[in-house]
């Protein structure tokens, strides 16, 4: 099964990259763009058929490596 993990900065953590992206979009003629937050998208192929077990393992992966929970949140999505 395939899993998708999104890692984003927690609210309140300054995101200078997001800000720079927002400014660039404004300059490019998209004045409607306000606050921008950027993050990471990680797609994983798992040798696992049990969804509950997969979620549990992914949660551990996120806490151990994929996200730094001091500043980042993560969300897990299972596909297929």
């Amino acid at each position, binding site marked *: 099964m395939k899993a998708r993990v999104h890692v984003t900065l927690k609210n309140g*953590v*300054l995101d*200078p*990259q997001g800000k*720079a992206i927002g400014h660039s979009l404004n300059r490019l003629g998209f004045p409607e763009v306000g606050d921008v937050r950027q993050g*990471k998208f990680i797609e994983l192929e798992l040798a696992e058929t049990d969804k509950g077990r997969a979620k549990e393992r992914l949660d551990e992966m996120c806490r*151990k*490596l*994929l996200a*730094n929970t*001091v*500043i980042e949140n993560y969300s897990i999505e299972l596909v297929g």
Partner: protein
Amino acid sequence: MKAAVLVFPGSNREGDVAQAIELVTGRRPQMVWHGDGDFEKTDLIVVPGGFSYGDYLRCGAMAAQSPVMAEVKRRAQQGVPVLAICNGFQIATEAGLLPGVLMRNAQLKFVCHDVHLKVETSQSLFTNRYQTGQVIRVPVAHAEGNYFADADTLKRLEDRGQVAFRYCAPDGTVDGSGNPNGSIDNIAGIFNEAKTVMGLMPHPENAVEPMFGGCDGRALFEGLVDALT
């Protein structure tokens, strides 16, 4: 003083720090490859600067999970002193040896120049050759040195005197003018609670000989020799 310097794929200041240590001890430190889960007992472990594992995922995230770091964590728990510089500081926070995190510099630029640091305390293995409040000049070279920790962690750091160095102006004023990366409260370096682990973004190992524009970093290594020999 016997020292070990860790080497990861992508480390690039391991030679500089090895040379600084040799300068004050007369003895070449042991270089330890990241895959080595065990190495000779030493009085000091140094996690050097560079771009371990190409800074993939997050700076220091991969290196923090390497076999050598598992052993460093074990030894740090037993009280073996660890000096973590630049990428080493990032690795130490990712490994849980030090609290907080080093984020992308606030202005999104790689900074590479001399900075002034205020020594926050002389009461440690690492800073005993400095005076509390002394201003020193050493270089920085990083893109992710923007120290951040939540309010509770910061309060604990301050209450327990765990801030080692703060970025400051040449006259010692701690304000935005001397802060190269947006670090919260101008924090440039911190200790763990026992003050046996120190992490800092600046490079004291690159300020040990007059030929390189300054010697202010040398006292850090001399202080370690005093404390650990």
